């Protein structure tokens, strides 16, 4: 196990370096001049003297290898700052990473509870009205783009609710406030819960559908396997067959998906974060990309990639717990 973990961490570090290099090269391949963007070139042409000063200030006139090393050092040490706003990136990470994690954790809870239970119910009541309804429902939800879903939710629970004087408890804020109202860093206060519900639902929507469909399929496969038939033949109670023999086997691919999806939710919740104004990592990277803010793009992307890699590692380790046939550390 230890060898496996060390090898995977080494592999993750190489992936991070590769990712850094690709992002760095792509940044310099962009057609726009970063100095011009930083100098405020969007609405007018900044004078050449200003562009020159910006170029010098941010060392954009250094050779590419020099800039590569400088930015790599800043990224590794989290010592850089935004070109545009001069926020130290370590502060950005301190404030934004917890927000991304909170949103991802709550979205994942929705994904796990709603997705797995819907999948299990569908599988147990195969071809029933409930199964058909959940199949249709999940198909509809997964077909609605995140933007539209978010807009509709806000319009109904925010604008419509206000204009039709719904009671206070039935109304939800249009925009989120993620920085206040947390107990132990992760449990929302009642007020924060109102801000959290909609982004968490939207972020979880597509993944929940996938988990439900995946659970249903793997449950049906597992239910038809020899060991489940044997368990039933031995006279085990149905609940025990379901939990110990069917569900445990069926969950292996589901756990894989959820683990990877968690990493994705932390770093790639760009649309949800943007629409609801949730101050996480994803929306910040997106903004930085549009502003040629290289230090932000590089450092936050590396954080996201590292989380993604660690989530993958945890999934691999969890295989061994769920399925004793899997041995980590390589074959002899």
């Amino acid at each position, binding site marked *: 196990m230890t060898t496996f973990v060390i090898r995977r961490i080494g592999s993750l570090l190489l992936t991070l370096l590769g990712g850094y290099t690709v992002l760095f090269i792509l940044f310099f391949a962009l057609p726009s001049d970063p100095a*011009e963007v930083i100098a405020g070139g969007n609405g007018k042409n900044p004078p050449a003297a200003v562009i020159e*000063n910006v170029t010098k200030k941010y060392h954009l006139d250094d050779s590419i290898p020099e800039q590569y090393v400088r930015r790599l050092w800043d990224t590794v040490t989290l010592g850089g700052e935004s070109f*545009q706003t*001069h926020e130290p990136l370590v502060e950005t990470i301190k404030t934004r990473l917890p927000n991304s994690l909170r949103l991802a954790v709550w979205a994942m809870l929705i994904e796990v509870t709603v997705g797995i239970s819907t999948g299990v119910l569908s599988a147990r009541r195969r071809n029933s009205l409930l199964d058909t309804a959940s199949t249709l429902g999940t198909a509809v939800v997964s077909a609605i783009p995140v933007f539209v879903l978010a807009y509709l939710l806000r319009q109904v629970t925010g604008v419509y609710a*206000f204009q039709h004087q719904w009671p206070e408890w039935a109304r939800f804020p*249009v925009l989120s406030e993620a920085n206040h109202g947390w107990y132990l860093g992760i449990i929302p206060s009642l007020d924060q819960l109102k801000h959290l519900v909609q982004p968490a639902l939207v972020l979880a929507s597509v993944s929940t559908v996938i988990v439900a469909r995946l659970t249903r399929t793997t449950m049906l496969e597992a239910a038809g396997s020899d060991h489940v038939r044997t368990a039933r033949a031995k006279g085990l109670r149905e609940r025990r067959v379901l939990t110990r023999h069917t569900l445990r086997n069926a969950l292996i691919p589901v756990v894989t998906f959820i683990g990877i999806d968690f990493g*994705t939710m932390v770093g*790639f919740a760009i649309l949800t974060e943007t629409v609801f104004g949730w101050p996480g990592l994803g929306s910040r990277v997106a903004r930085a990309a549009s502003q040629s803010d290289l230090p932000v793009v590089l450092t936050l992307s590396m954080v996201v990639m590292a989380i993604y890699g660690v989530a993958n590692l945890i999934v691999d380790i969890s295989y061994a717990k769920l399925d004793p046939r899997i041995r980590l550390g390589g074959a002899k």
Partner: protein
Amino acid sequence: MVRKRRGLYIPALLFTVALIAAACGDSKESSDGDASPGDVTTTTAARSDVCRTLNYATDAPVGGEFVDYAQLASGGDNTSFDPQAVQTLDESQITTALWDGLTEFDYTDTCNPVLKPQVAEKWEANDDATEYTFTIRKDQEFSNGEPIKPSNFKIAWERGGSAELASSYGYLMAYVKDGDKLLDGSLKTLDSIVADDDAMTLKVTLAAPNADFPAIASFPLFYPISKADYQKVGNTTGWGTKGITIGNGPYKLESATAPDSGEVVLVRNDKWKGGLTGMKRPFLDKITFKITADVESAYQAFEAGDGDDATIPSGQYAAAAAKYKNTLKEATLGTYFFDFGFDDPVVGGDKNVKLREAISMAIDRDEINKKVYEGTRTISTGITPPGIPGFKENLCKYCKTDPAEAKKVYAEWQKEGGKLTAPLKLSYNAGGSHQTVVETMQANLKDVLGIDAQPNPIEESYFKVIAKEGACQICRSGWYADYPTYGNFMVDLFGKVSIDGNNLGRYDDAKFEEAIAAAQKETDDTKRGDLYRSAEERLLNETVSVIPLNWYTGDAVYRDNIINYMTPPLGTIAWEHVAKKS
């Protein structure tokens, strides 16, 4: 001052997703900066009131909190509200609430603004407008209790022009003698700015005559800074407390979250010594500027009962105007137009003046206004908008849509040997509503003159690309005043000095240059206005080098219980006047 690009950053979002996904390997306006409403056709709403009187209620209720959703509704673009670094009109709403400058325009009569001393008691100029002496009022102090001395201006100005700060507006310091050496880093301090803290005078020697300098000094770059704050921040800047924050205006900063989410909170500055209209205390106790991702979200929040104001998103002007109090009729100092390429072989030069006249008269400005802006903008009768000292209406002879006259003049041009052999190229910055404007122009040219024209959208770095030699045949431009002077339009947009910069058509006319040079030297306000106007008339009617289309108006809604919410022409709200009924 640049207006921000509005809207969501979908291309950037998708691009970033793609970048990170690629790196991970196994993972699942505008464009121009001006307000760009979308494509909606409705009946023409009431036109803007070109000239207004800003009568602020003086008996408004005191106290309360105003929650703003209008000013920081494109949060990802926020960079700084530090006076020497602020770039956008939106962020400068905070800057102007936190600071007062040497001078300030009194916009009681919006078409006849009067420049008045503010932190300065008075100013004097020498005969050729190259030397100014500002006398600073003795009772002024910053919100931290530090007295305001002339040296607070000197350090601010030198900071604003410094190479280290690399401010977008640092070039304004080039008006001051040797200011260009601050910009290139060869000087750190200027002998041309002499601050005498005992005599309370600030003496400035300019690089060239400029009678507009007292007006230019009203721009945020020239606001004073606290020495304590400067010692902490120096020649660096950033969002919130990463930049200079201690001001001398009606409000002071209480807190600021990250630039793209959260809020900026201002509270009443009890050390404020009063404004131009004689008021001694701002009405509100607190202003909270909410930072949102885009105008649409902020407006939705307003519709859901949050906040006291919001910017109206594209395409919702008529609906918003029907429901809420708004600023849609309030003219601001923005102008939207197209340049002709001055040296373009097809449309440029003396021999093509009649072609340019015909093109200008063929464009249906009213159709554009209805289609794109729901009739909210004002059809322009020149480049320089009302609200600029020296402005006069109806300067332009060829800005009225007149198909018959356009056809006649076009036929004359053809008779004189003029011939178009290829479609005209209508260049614009891709995105926003410019495409609809250009398509309307294309249809007008075909319908009225039978001229083929080709839209030429430019995706990246439009202003840089189009400013290059030979790039502009007919190209979109627009401008929002940095400070309310005629020169800010004539010199910055059409002066020879602005070629390769914001003079996109590369206009270079000797008579025009003579007129603006004379205007810059002229210290008499009336005569200076006459000279600038003669320059504009040369541009509009003799060389016919631009197609003015419209002047901008406000685009905000606000609650019924808000008092004194008005947009002065320069666009920055006088926050000390804004009040709220409980």
